[in-house]
């Protein structure tokens, strides 16, 4: 079974989507370490190291995603998790920025996949399996 780490980053307290993701990924056959809400970058990394996770799934719903998510890839590299898959999703920025721009911004930060608030979890799971198995960065 593959381990993944899940959580809502920063000072964000939105917990409903987090529980849905936990249930869905568990159902899909992953061993989910769910850190819940208000998770710091360091906590994501500690959990990923101890559980030997193949992916970190970051949610952000409150509009501060850009500042909270920046630098996570660099910290992962510093801590020896250079090959880990990073996904991010939610309401990543405030306002009406087109999703393509948001996506580009987060891809540049080192996330492998970026999702908006309305994506198909079935597809996410499929991509996640492929990304983990292909060792894709």
């Amino acid at each position, binding site marked *: *079974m593959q*381990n993944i*780490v899940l959580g809502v980053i920063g*000072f*964000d*307290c939105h917990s409903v989507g987090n529980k849905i993701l936990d249930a869905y990924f568990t159902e899909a056959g992953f*061993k989910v*370490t769910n*850190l819940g*809400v*208000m998770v*710091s970058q360091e*906590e994501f990394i*500690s*959990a990923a*190291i*101890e*559980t*030997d*996770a193949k992916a970190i799934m970051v949610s952000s719903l*409150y*509009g*501060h995603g850009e500042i909270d998510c920046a630098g996570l890839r660099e910290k992962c590299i510093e801590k020896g998790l250079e090959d880990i898959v990073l996904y991010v999703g939610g309401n990543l920025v405030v306002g009406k920025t087109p999703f393509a721009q948001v996506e580009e911004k987060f891809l540049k930060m080192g996330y492998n996949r970026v999702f908006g608030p309305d994506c198909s979890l079935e597809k996410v799971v499929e991509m996640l399996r492929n990304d983990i198995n292909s060792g894709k960065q």
Partner: protein
Amino acid sequence: MTSDRAICVDIGSTWTKAAVFRLADDRFVAENRAAVATSVDYLPDAFFNAVQQVCPGADWRSLTAATAPCPVYFSSSAKGGLKVAVVGLVPEMSLQIARLAAFSAGARICASYPYRLTRASIAAIESAQPDILLLCGGTDGGNERYVTENAQALAGSDFRGTVIFAGNNAAADRVSDLLAARDLVITANLMPDFGRLNIEPVREAIRSIFLDKIVAGKGLDRLVTAFATQPVPTPLAVLNLVRAIGDHADGWQNFALIDMGGATTDFYSHSDSWYPESGTVMKGIVEPRLKRTVEGDLGMRVSAESTFETGEAYLAAVSDFSTEQLAALSRYTSNLTTNTSHLPANAIERHYDSLLAGACIYHSLMRHAGSIEEVFTTRGPVWAQTGKDLRRINRLVGTGGYLAAMGRNGDPVAIPDRPVQPAEKVALLPQNFVYYADFDYILPLLGNLAEKFPRACALTAVSALRQTQHYEVKEPCQREFNKA
């Protein structure tokens, strides 16, 4: 028990203490007490002298469990407990849990190492030669790389003690192969899932290694055979008693105990660690209800000098001493560290001792307690907590020779309600509590019986303690707790 009496002996590094306890109704009564100088080379000599004093009329040296008038229990401090080095993975996760587990087994931690053991760390372990090396890291099915690499590094080292492996169970076979030539004990994982603690198996492993190691030397094997009883490490005896009090004494569900000695200051708490309804968000692990920490740099005699170094800012803040006076205090502590049997000769030295005691209490409490920090979110301010919340502790017990004497003399004990220097984080210290002194210094002896007679020991302990002070913080550090 067949007899209504039991003899308890505590073999310390300086004194061997003994008492006879008689079971009267639901609790014990201490009948006779004795203390003799410990016979360091052959421990049974002092043991028998002490027992002979508290229970004369028989030649104890020729008695056995079958012929003795009552059962005998004993504890041994074994120079402050077994020396343990801890090797974990992430410092605030597996390494922190391993430290909690070792402390709760009555061990003394000489060093802790996160992540990978470097050549320098291996050299440090080789020169310290701890009795036990506790190797852990990785959840079950989680990270295997670090523990196997660390096992490999240990396999090539000159470390001669016992290795306890309590990490990722998926790595157990590999670790066992790598350390096949070593004294190795494998237990269940300390952290089977991320954030979930499982410290009992490690506690048990350390305890049984302790028995094997201390019983082997200094004649204790003779006592074990004669009286058909196993010694308990003294700190574990105290821990067992703390557990018994919290489980069995009415009104003692949230209490703490400080055991201040010449070499170390041990702090115990028996209370919930986190109160979700108080509106705080927990960061890191939720610590266990029963927690022990040991501060090797804080103590009244052997560690007096390091207490001064650690506590300099505290001492300067509470004493209003000038630089010259602080220097005099510093010289006094250096002298104590070499002259450990020194007793204060005058008023100023008595004042020095009480300041040192304050520093030991202050730092051991600060390190045991967690903290909260206010963070601002889009939904308003939130308190983020790390470590253990001691705010609802309503009773605090002081034991150890010095605190027992302070209690008898009616001297007030300085217990902090906030840091001496302003800090960003709020320390989660007890807010409103009664202080009790172990007047007769009876708790460590009574602790010998705590595993077998928890309820009677708990009732005995709380009736032996004397309430000396009531502390109440006028302005609680956080509003939610006004009601608590």
